[in-house]
């Protein structure tokens, strides 16, 4: 039994100790990372209990959406399916992971109210739970990605390692937004609606369904859109294109600033979150 057998809880002792306690929460969550995984797999299992295809249902519906949008828009934009379908497929799959992680982030703490109010589990455990759950979904959707890339022959030029780096950067960013949304939603019940609306808006403002190069006149729509960079870092290498250095600069900066901010908020609100619920 290697569970922590010593617990010390103290009153407020200034900002520095709050920060240390927040780091301890993070550390403890890594020590019990298996629990977050167990909770995530349980979530996925119970959501699709009794259905034959299970999580592959969303894969299927996503596949249909990819096919529909791909064919229609390829005609509208006069682009060949060969070029456009993989582009849309990757866009929808990876944007979906981001949206899922962030939207479900709103529920992270609210859903865990029961556990948080009678155990000393680290708060971060539940952040990882949301992230892992969405990773499991992503693993299912990879079927679409692999199928499209194989069918259209992109596997010859794709660079999976660079794409993996992109996925890591994407998750790093999506997870802080997710956690921030979780804390805010626990306190203010309007936040989930706002988050959903923003993500909805973002999917149309980001070149997910439409080709980015059709927007040449207004680069700022792309350059100032964080979601564009997030998506490009994953999509471009898989399509055998290079990722603009600017994207990496934006992503790394965003991850650093975002996590610092979120962590500061967490350190401040950590002892209050359980009372919000």
């Amino acid at each position, binding site marked *: *039994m290697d569970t922590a057998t010593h617990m*010390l809880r103290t009153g407020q002792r200034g900002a520095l100790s709050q920060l240390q306690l927040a780091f301890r929460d993070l550390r403890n969550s890594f020590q019990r990372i298996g629990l977050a995984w167990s909770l995530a797999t349980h979530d996925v299992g119970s959501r699709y209990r009794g259905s034959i295809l299970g999580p592959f249902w969303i894969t299927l519906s996503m596949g249909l959406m990819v096919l529909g949008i791909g064919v229609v828009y390829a005609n509208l934009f006069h682009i060949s399916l060969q070029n456009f379908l993989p582009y849309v497929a990757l866009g929808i799959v990876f944007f979906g992971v981001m949206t899922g992680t962030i939207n479900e982030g709103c529920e992270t703490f609210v859903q865990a109210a029961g*556990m948080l109010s009678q155990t000393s589990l680290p708060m971060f455990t539940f952040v990882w739970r949301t992230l892992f759950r969405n990773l499991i979904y992503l693993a299912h959707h990879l079927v679409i990605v692999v199928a499209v890339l194989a069918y259209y022959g992109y596997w010859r030029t794709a660079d999976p390692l660079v794409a993996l780096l992109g996925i890591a950067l994407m998750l790093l960013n999506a997870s802080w937004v997710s956690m921030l949304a979780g804390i805010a939603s626990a306190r203010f019940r309007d936040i989930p609606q706002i988050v959903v609306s923003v993500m909805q808006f973002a999917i149309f403002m980001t070149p997910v369904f439409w080709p980015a190069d059709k927007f040449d006149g207004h680069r700022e729509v792309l350059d100032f859109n964080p979601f564009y960079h997030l998506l490009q870092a994953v999509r471009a290498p898989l399509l055998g294109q290079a990722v603009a250095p600017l994207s990496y600069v934006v992503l790394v900066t965003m991850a650093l600033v975002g996590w610092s901010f979120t962590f500061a908020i967490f350190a401040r609100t950590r002892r209050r979150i359980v009372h919000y619920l």
Partner: protein
Amino acid sequence: MSQPPASITCTDLTLRFPVYGVDAKSLKKALARVVAVGGQLGRHAGVTDVTALQGVNLQLKAGDRLGLIGHNGSGKTTLLRALSGAYEPDEGTIEVQGRIAALLDLSLGIDATATGYENIRLRGRIAGLSSREIDERMDELAAFTGLGPFLAMPVKTYSAGMQARLAFAAATAVEADVLLMDEWIAVGDADFQKLAHKRLLKLVERAGILVLASHEVSLLRLYCNKVMRLEGGVASEVVDIRRLDELMAA
């Protein structure tokens, strides 16, 4: 082993609950309030506090079985939750040495659509058991519930009594050094209650420390050797169980 013996130490423990009214949970209201008080954000303007525990001092060592008495809302459950590590004190400290098992809410982590086995597994994971530990203990737990083949069925097909059996077995799967209980939780029909009593007693025997909140004086006399009274969040001294009547009269 070289582990220090179980102990609980609370010094000047004060716990306040901020009350966020249903209305205050709307962002609009909060923004409006900020404007109304002229931007004094740091003041927690308008947030009412309820002091649930005030200046509680408590010192328990291995072998102590503390009974908590007090009216509804006197802070018994809050103290138990604070001891479980869920609530952070506003002032003072709580230090607990040893593995804690909080049997406060039996339905914790019970998923009605999952099977009995899955629920035992999940609950055990939450309580800090590894998957292997759960596997090792599964047979014993399954036998204890007496649910047999029903364990492979979803919990929603269970009767209330069967659910209680499952929840009880899952919740008591952990061998803890510090046992926190809100009411003596022996559940189920007469036969099962006997089993449950026996199991709880075994847990209590094994655990170094028991903290039990209850209104049942006879239970407290049976299981506790010390008693403390909470009154509006203020704790009395910890006294021997033989002075229970004195304490109740005070």
